[in-house]
């Protein structure tokens, strides 16, 4: 199954996010590797996903899970060789699966040779590859992101006796994008991987590339210029490849990252995700519709990227204080579940392992406008381990079967990069791929089905959205449209059965065809269309004129 030639492939994609370390260990060292990942491509193909987003796999001291890169042109020895990666890439492409990799452009590890050179002396040619200062008083208006660990965005370097700028951990100095050499070097990095065949980059922490005094150093025009340059060179040399922006910002602030179809192809819609959880808890669609109302139109070739959970905490930066308190009380009663401004938990535990809620949330993920991203393990409802520090609790090994080490590795258990989930509810004996594949009503089989249904229509990825506002605020209903085709989606956010009257006058005469069972529902007439919905139930209806 070769890759399709459509340059807008990312609009129809279903992306699977995985860290190579966590998926499968082929050599028994307790750490997942590319050969292991390659061996599980059939599984991913079965699931139905069309793209893999790989988290950083580059050589790194691994103090921030690989986001502290020490060499951009190689593979971390634990995960295999560059050749292993190439093989994996080829195997994925053979299965019609595209591969998106990380480009951590904002900063490097302090172990990176560039930084070592830069700090070595003030007159080193690489000195101004990083942001140095004699004082720590510059850029005072810039917020600190990792509130729990960092006190300042400046760190003192005892070697060169100066402060260096870092937006994240102090071991991750920010590159200086005012320096043309840095910009050129970053394009060379991209070029390296694009030549090899990767289909896209997820650019980490893009709002922070450039610093200017008197600003909050986020979303600056200079930063956009850097990004536009990279996009131009990408389009010139590798058409059909994709850039995905990670920028945890309000939708209106995100809009510039799409530019005039000359910056990013895709960007994460961060504020939507916590509001989906909030809407579910409140049993009220208001948070969801409100954030989508505030979401600006984006150019036709651009796309939002949606997710329920990822490798980071469920971020609550883009909510009000009142909403954050509510989210904490609802989803992270225990303080240990909280990290920075967020909740470090996986999907299933967040939703109390309630299958109906998990299905509803996935149903919304797959039907709201954007490209869905599934975090590895969430397709089988894996749990987390809040006793592991930082965000490691949601980065435990994939659970393949109920045998030793969950089938992840043949290494002795104590040598695994992280302990397996052991608890009775989410532990690998209870939750694993093998078991779910054989059980007809498993979450895995259900995920497989919903992905298939989503892929059956281009409307989901490319259609417009129009909200219906039924008076019953527990019902989130919208119509997705593309050309003459339309799909009606109705979600019951409530834990109880609900009746809802939908105003479908515009679609009068259409019959409704439920997309999972392909059964007909009554024709739309003049009266409001009455639906009764079970707890957390959702319907996808194709509107058909006959």
């Amino acid at each position: 199954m070769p890759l399709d030639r459509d340059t807008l492939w990312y609009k129809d994609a279903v992306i699977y996010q995985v860290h190579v370390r966590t998926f499968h260990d082929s050599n028994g060292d307790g750490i997942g590797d590319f050969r292991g990942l390659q061996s599980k491509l059939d599984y991913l193909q079965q699931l139905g996903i069309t793209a893999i987003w790989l988290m950083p796999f580059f050589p790194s001291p691994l103090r921030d899970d690989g986001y502290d890169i020490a060499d951009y042109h190689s593979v971390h020895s634990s995960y295999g060789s560059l050749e292993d990666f190439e093989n994996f890439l080829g195997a994925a492409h053979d299965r019609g699966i595209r591969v998106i990799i990380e480009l951590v452009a904002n900063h490097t590890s302090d172990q990176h040779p560039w930084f070592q050179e830069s700090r070595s002396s003030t007159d080193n040619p690489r000195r101004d590859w990083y942001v140095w200062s004699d004082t720590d008083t510059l850029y005072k208006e810039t917020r600190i992101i990792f509130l729990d660990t960092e006190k300042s965005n400046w760190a003192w370097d005892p070697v060169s006796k100066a402060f260096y700028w870092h937006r994240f951990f102090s071991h991750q100095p920010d590159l200086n994008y005012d320096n043309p050499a840095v910009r050129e070097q970053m394009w060379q990095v991209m070029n390296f991987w694009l030549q090899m065949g990767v289909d896209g980059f997820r650019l980490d922490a893009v709002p922070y590339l450039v610093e200017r005094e008197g600003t909050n150093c986020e979303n600056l025009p200079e930063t956009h210029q850097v990004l536009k340059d990279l996009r131009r060179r990408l389009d010139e040399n590798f058409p059909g490849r994709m850039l995905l922006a990670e920028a945890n910002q309000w939708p209106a602030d995100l809009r510039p990252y799409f530019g005039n179809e000359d910056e990013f192809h895709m960007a994460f819609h961060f504020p939507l995700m916590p509001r989906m959880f909030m809407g579910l808890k409140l049993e009220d669609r208001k948070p969801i519709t409100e954030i989508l109302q505030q979401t600006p139109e984006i150019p036709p070739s651009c796309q939002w990227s949606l997710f329920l959970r990822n490798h980071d905490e469920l971020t609550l930066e883009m909510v009000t204080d009142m909403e954050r308190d509510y989210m904490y009380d609802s989803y992270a009663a225990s303080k240990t579940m909280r990290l920075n401004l967020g909740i470090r938990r996986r999907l299933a535990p967040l939703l109390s392992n309630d299958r109906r809620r998990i299905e509803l949330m996935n149903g919304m993920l797959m039907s709201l406008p954007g490209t869905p991203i599934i975090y590895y393990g969430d397709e089988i409802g894996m749990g987390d381990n809040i006793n592991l520090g930082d965000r490691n609790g949601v980065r435990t090994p994939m659970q393949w079967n109920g045998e030793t080490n969950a089938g992840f590795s043949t290494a002795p258990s104590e040598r695994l990069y992280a302990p397996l989930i052991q608890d009775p509810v989410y532990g690998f004996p209870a939750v694993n791929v093998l078991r779910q594949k054989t059980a007809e009503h498993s979450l895995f089989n259900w995920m497989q089905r919903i992905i298939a249904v989503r892929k059956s229509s281009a409307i989901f990825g490319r259609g417009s959205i129009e909200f219906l506002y039924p008076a019953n605020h527990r019902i989130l209903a919208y119509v997705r449209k593309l050309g003459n085709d339309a799909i009606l989606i109705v979600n019951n956010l409530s834990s109880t059965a609900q009746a809802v009257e939908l105003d479908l006058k515009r679609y009068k005469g259409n019959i409704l065809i439920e997309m999972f069972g392909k059964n007909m529902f009554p024709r739309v007439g003049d009266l409001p269309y009455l639906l009764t919905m079970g707890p957390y139930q959702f319907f996808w209806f194709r509107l058909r004129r006959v």
Partner: protein
Amino acid sequence: MSEESFLTDDFLRQLMNVGEVDIVVGLPTHNNAKTVGPIIQTIQSGILRGFPRERTAIINADGGSRDGTTDLVRGGSIGDVGAKSKVNALRTLHSISTDYSNSSDDSNGAAFRTILAAADLLRAKACVMMSPESANIEPEWVSKLLRPVLDDGYDLVTPTYRRHKFEGLLVTNLLYPMTRALYGVKIREVFSSEFGFSSGFGSKFLEQNVWDDRTYTGGAELRFTLAAITGKYRVYQTFLGDKMHVERRGAELVPALRQTVGALFSSLGPDFPAWSVADFASAPTNGSDHQVLLDPLRVNRKRLRAMFSTGILELESVFQSILSPETVAELRRIADMGENNFRLPAELWVKTVYEFAISYQKSAINRDHIIQALAPIFRGRVYTFLTENRDSSADEVEKNIEALCLEFERMKPYLLQMWKSIE
């Protein structure tokens, strides 16, 4: 259930859309377009401040307004439609409205009943009634009236106000002392247009009350307070602040008497087992149980006195059917007194009220006529109160009211004795 028949289909559909809630705010209106907008906003900010996470609905029962009151109420919903509201609200806050004026019963009680039924259907944990006329409603009132219900399990929360010493004289000269003397519970505002209550009590009241009889639906608010006392529900008083009406409405004495004294008198019959043996208790109170403003107030006292005297003179035949001959004679004697020494003393006032209550119970003449006949005598009492307290300080006024309460208590055996003779 009877409420199914008196709630319209449209209203039921609105209720269905609101769904289960934690709090219901009841708002009875009738041509209140001038004030209802700001009041809805105040209620909403009270809810958003005090109960941001609770599911809440504002339910408006309207008596057939023609000035667009209901549109204002409906337009006040906080939701996602049109995204016009920039209010920082966690949830949808429905504001719905129904018109009860087409139903067979269009009294004030019907509004209260509609709201009770809605709260019952929505399974609200607590409910608060708000007046559409309060000129100075504060967002905190919502919390003050609801917190004791939600947090401490009280069933009825009545307000106390800071008001002028000469405002609310029907309350201080009759309703408060008489209910206190008879029912034995000290509730300052037995009849108020703002109060909070628990769903348990509300539903019970809805279910037990006789709603079909018009004489019963009038003054439902006072009956509600009495039901809380006789049903041994937990009552709490909370201080709200100034009580101000949008406009002073002195001329409406008779309707006020009907709503309050009528309701009180008509409750005495069914409540006899409770009040005949009541012990004295005092409802727990948060904040001051009364506060008094003393600034001068212009009152046409001459007119009051004139209306009293004319009333006594002209209504003598009516009084003869209501009062004992001695009381009639005594009233006549007072009516003939000169302006300087005119005074309707507490004892005679209490006796008169009790005899009225008895005649009401006996239906000596048409009950509404009995209530109307009380108006001139009440004016005489008001005149006396104004005269006696013209220069009084807050404490002295309170002392006088306390004395009147004791008079009502002292005379209770007289009422009981008469009551037993008619049974």
